């Protein structure tokens, strides 16, 4: 901050002293509400008593014989006074604790999210929102064993498959795990809801492990879930609607080519453009899907070298201007979404072709080293301008936009490739020299030996 600005702040913020006072007095009060307060007050009263009780007795009772008689009584008086004092102090501290507990309880009770507390025997506490979310009237309907809860509310995964009892977020929390997941439940009124459930273990300080409790917080995410399902449906429809006409055009181009081989060059162009359009559609769909975080396709084990060879081979048949080289040491097994990895390969090879308009060699190398599979795609094309190199993985960024080398594209493929590779636990990077070409590399963890 500049000095002048500081001065103006100093003049406007005048009431500093009272504020500091309240902070200190609050700290002071907080300090005194510890058990130390009881001890301190006791020590002060006891000390004063020791210092002054004999003097006071001397003043009040001049006769030493009588004073000796009163000594025992004085002792009893001391015990009585301090007992009353300690009683008052402890009682006050206790009532403060109790009211604090009541405040916490009221806060949990009025939370918007459903809260349930679970111990080894089952659900032991549920707040009002929890009852409302489950559609029940009284706590008694919810409290009880998890088996009972499962039987009544039928928790299922969002794909409809039943959740095994031990797999419930709250059951896992009892094992010491913190989890958040979406669960489908059937409310007491029969309505299906999707709840986002977060469960965490907790225990009183110093309590044994067996006394671990679970707090589960949940909220209704049915609306968001419904929206997601609609988007998913929309994307599926879009894929179908956009790709079907392309399928028809491509198939007829092939049909004509079979019947009139002389027209092959022209029809190859038609097919190449259809393939390109198909990829653009796929990129757009992938982009929205990855953005929505909708997974698709279970991971499978496949040979990265073979997949790379297939993609290269497809390009070789439709592109006569470039020479394609493919080098691999043999099978390179990896695990993942084969379709998506194929798209990464396709994107890198497309770029290599697109940005080497003069033709020339495009090399795809697959290697296996140090538990990693690596693919490198090299071209001898225009390269990437140095000042734009840091941005090429940004979405919609097109490094050659506005240059004579602007060969089109949506600026999606590298962003998508990076997203796909990183979701597989790999890395992607490149080297590029303007005027000489670029080499893109990506890695994937190699599949474990002996696993199917």
């Amino acid at each position: 901050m500049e000095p002048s600005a500081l001065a103006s702040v100093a003049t406007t913020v005048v009431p500093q002293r009272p504020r500091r006072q309240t902070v200190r007095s609050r700290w002071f009060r907080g300090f005194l509400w510890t058990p130390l307060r009881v001890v301190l007050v006791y020590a002060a009263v006891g000390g004063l008593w020791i210092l002054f009780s004999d003097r006071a007795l001397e003043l009040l009772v001049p006769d030493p014989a009588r004073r000796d008689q009163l000594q025992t009584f004085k002792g009893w008086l001391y015990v009585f006074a301090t007992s009353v004092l300690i009683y008052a102090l402890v009682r006050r501290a206790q009532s403060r604790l109790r009211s604090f507990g009541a405040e916490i309880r009221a806060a949990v009770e009025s939370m918007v999210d459903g809260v349930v507390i679970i111990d080894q025997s089952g659900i032991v506490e549920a707040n009002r929102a929890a009852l409302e979310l489950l559609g029940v009237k009284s706590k008694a309907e919810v409290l009880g064993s998890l088996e009972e809860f499962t039987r009544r509310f039928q928790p299922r995964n969002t794909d409809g498959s039943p959740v095994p009892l031990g797999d419930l977020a709250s059951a896992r929390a009892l094992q010491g795990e913190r989890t958040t997941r979406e669960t489908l439940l059937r409310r007491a009124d029969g309505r299906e809801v999707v709840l986002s459930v977060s469960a965490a273990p907790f225990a009183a300080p110093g309590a044994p492990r067996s006394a671990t409790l679970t707090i589960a917080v949940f909220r209704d995410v049915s609306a968001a879930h419904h929206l997601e399902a609609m988007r998913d449906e929309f994307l599926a429809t879009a894929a179908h609607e956009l790709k079907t006409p392309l399928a028809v055009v491509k198939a007829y181009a092939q049909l004509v080519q079979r019947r009139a081989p002389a027209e092959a060059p022209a029809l190859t162009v038609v097919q190449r453009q259809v393939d390109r359009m198909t990829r653009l559609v796929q990129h757009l769909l992938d982009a929205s899907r990855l953005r929505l975080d909708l997974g698709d396709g279970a991971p499978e084990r496949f040979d990265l070298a073979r997949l790379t060879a297939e993609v290269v081979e497809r390009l070789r048949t439709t592109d006569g201007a470039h020479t394609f080289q493919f080098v691999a040491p043999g099978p390179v097994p990896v695990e993942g979404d084969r379709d998506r990895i194929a798209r990464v390969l396709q994107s890198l090879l497309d770029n290599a072709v697109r940005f080497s308009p003069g033709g020339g060699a495009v090399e795809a190398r697959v290697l296996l080293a140090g538990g990693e599979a690596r693919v490198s795609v090299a071209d001898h094309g225009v390269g990437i301008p140095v000042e734009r190199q840091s941005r090429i993985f940004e979405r919609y960024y097109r490094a050659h936009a506005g240059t004579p080398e602007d060969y089109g594209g949506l600026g999606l493929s590298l962003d998508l490739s990076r997203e796909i590779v990183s979701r597989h636990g790999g890395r992607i990077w490149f080297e590029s020299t303007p005027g000489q070409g670029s080499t893109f590399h990506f890695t994937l963890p190699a599949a474990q030996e002996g696993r199917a």
Partner: protein
Amino acid sequence: MRDVLVVEDDLDLLQLEEMVLQEAGHRVRTASDGQRALERVAEEMPGLILLDMRMPVMNGWEFAREFRRRYGRACPIVVVTAAENAQLRAAEVEADGWLAKPFDIDDVLRLVARFVAPPQNVRL
């Protein structure tokens, strides 16, 4: 020789598949939705069903479920779809094969030859 039943709602594509398969010597019947496909199957059990997934009246998922309920695995089903993940869609209906659209005609022919006995007198 058992024939190939092509189930596809896009008539242009349906016509093309019919033409190409016939030229390769296959006997072909067609249906433009799952309901009609079931009627064709009831007339005669085909040797292979090429099944599109998104169709009006009765879609591919419903057709496959109904087919399996009535006939079990009496005939292989190959899913031909423009969906994003053809393989996954095929797995959903426990299909015997899959083909992603847009496809290559050669791939269609290869796939069909895998399931239906190679035609006797092929006109090339």
